[in-house]
């Protein structure tokens, strides 16, 4: 049949990953992202030179990612909030070892076991390292099923290009909802040769080690610095965002993921009432689009950050605004999704 399909967000990530060349998936089911694990099982178990393992735990799964990724193959794992917490040690190891991989977090209400409804409470964890040590993941925040497809494909390229774990940060709603999607050829990007570092069998060359430690502080510091340079490069080259009506806006809302969809409806409704709202939607959460926010703060004096949390991304927005404008916050948490009506009410209060 045609290339257009009606897919759940979770399924769409799976298909996009496979089309991007991912043949290795290790994970442990958790609501609301289990359809992704199920999709990978259905597909990869029928493919040659592929592996799917439902691991005994999230900790095991992320370490399998380390093993597979060290051989240079494209590999993925996925989970939802509590499961992603369990993967943090592994992500820290993967970062220092510079192993490319893609990790998906379809966030749910937290903290703790939380709820199974959509939330955005893992922003800090995703963008500020999450595990121990000085590191960052590349964090992409899609807001539609089609964008899940596109960004999943991009995530594999970015991970390879920067030898860094990349995370797709979605939420339960994005994972569960269905939208029509189209699959195009994954973007062709010139990528570094993995044969330079991957463990591929040492016949005819010196053995290699891919390790997440060096006991000599000076050596470790040099690695830290190298990683720091990588993050600087990411900030210079890979920032992505979407702008809507920011030129004419009297107030700018900053929101990512599914919340941005809700904001778009609120903006349309506001327009009918003569209220001019703009939207800055960060697509990369790390690197964060601080420059475009700083520029907007020169013109617009009112900002509203809306999140499905008690306020996390607002800290990055405030750093970018740097006191040039007033930054307010509206959030719902625990798995409650805000409505366009309540957002418009909030705007009117400012």
């Amino acid at each position, binding site marked *: 049949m045609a290339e257009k399909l*009606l897919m759940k967000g979770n399924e769409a990530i799976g298909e996009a990953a496979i089309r991007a060349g991912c043949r290795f998936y290790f994970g442990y089911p958790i609501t609301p992202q289990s359809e992704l694990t199920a999709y990978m099982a259905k597909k990869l178990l029928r493919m040659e030179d592929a592996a799917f393992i439902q691991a005994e735990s999230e900790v095991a799964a992320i370490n399998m990612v380390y093993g597979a990724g060290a051989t240079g193959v494209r590999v993925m794992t996925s989970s939802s909030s509590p499961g992603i917490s369990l993967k943090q040690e592994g992500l820290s190891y993967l970062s220092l070892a510079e192993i490319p991989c893609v990790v998906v977090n379809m966030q749910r209400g937290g903290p703790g076991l939380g709820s199974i409804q959509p939330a955005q409470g893992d922003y800090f964890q995703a963008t500020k390292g999450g595990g121990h040590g000085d590191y960052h993941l590349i964090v992409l925040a899609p807001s539609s099923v089609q964008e899940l497809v596109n960004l999943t494909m991009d995530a594999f390229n970015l991970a390879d290009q920067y030898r860094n774990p990349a995370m797709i940060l979605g939420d339960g709603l994005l994972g569960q909802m269905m939208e029509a999607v189209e699959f195009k050829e994954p973007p062709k990007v010139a990528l570094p040769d993995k044969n330079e570092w991957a463990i591929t069998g040492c016949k005819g060359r010196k053995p290699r080690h891919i390790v997440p430690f060096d006991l000599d502080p000076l050596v470790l510091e040099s690695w830290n610095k190298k990683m720091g340079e990588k993050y600087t490069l990411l900030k210079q080259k890979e920032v992505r965002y979407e702008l809507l009506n920011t030129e004419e806006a009297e107030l700018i809302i900053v929101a990512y993921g599914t919340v941005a969809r809700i904001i778009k409806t609120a903006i349309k409704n506001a327009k009918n009432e003569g209220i001019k709202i703009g939207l800055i939607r960060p697509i990369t959460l790390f690197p964060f689009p601080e420059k475009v926010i700083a520029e907007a703060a020169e013109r617009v004096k009112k900002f509203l950050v809306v999140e499905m949390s008690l306020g996390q991304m607002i800290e990055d927005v405030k750093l970018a605004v740097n006191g040039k404008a007033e930054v307010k916050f509206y959030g719902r948490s625990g798995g409650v999704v805000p409505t366009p009506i309540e957002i418009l009410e909030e705007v009117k209060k400012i």
Partner: protein
Amino acid sequence: MKNKDEKRIQIFVGGFGSGKTEIAINYSFQLREKYKQVAIVDLDIVNPYFRTREVRDNLELQEIRLIAPKKEMVYADLPQISPEIKGMLQNIHYYVVLDVGGDDVGSVVLGSFSSILQGLDYEMSMVVNVYRPFTQEIAQILQLAKELEKSSRLKLTSIISNPNLQELTDKGTIIKGHKLIEQVARELKLPIRFLCIEKSLAPEIKNMNFNHPIFYLTRFMKLPWK
């Protein structure tokens, strides 16, 4: 829709995300126009979101009885089967719609009621959207039919054609998708009960003949920004 010998038990099974819940809800509203006592059973143990229980208020307003996990358990991440179901299936005064979870996994629940259902007058329709992954090809749909019958321990009696890409659905989508379902129906030797089309598309297809009755759908599972 006219149907003189409407079965008292209406079971909707099918692939994951094929549209069973929307169809079951719409169907129960239609039944309610004809009969006083109508119940809808949310048998979905697979989906965490977008389930029949989410339209509880709409159903109650029409005096359609909803049998689903109790309000306080509605968000629990547990497969729950209400003890009321068995009684309802045997209550000859009620027309009962069963909204079953997706794939063979979802239909397992039906299997636990198969001994009761086998002795009753039931219609079991397989809902298929050919634009969903895993039901895009004839062979896949035939395989699914086999799996559904095996896990539910019941026989399919008809097929419901639900070709759609949500908002991107147009005339072409429907024609192409429905043609495939006609082939499937021939292979399975099952009748096509109806073709589902979203109500908003009615003007676009009004002069067309699809060889089968059209069932106009109103969408109940809405996203927060719609």
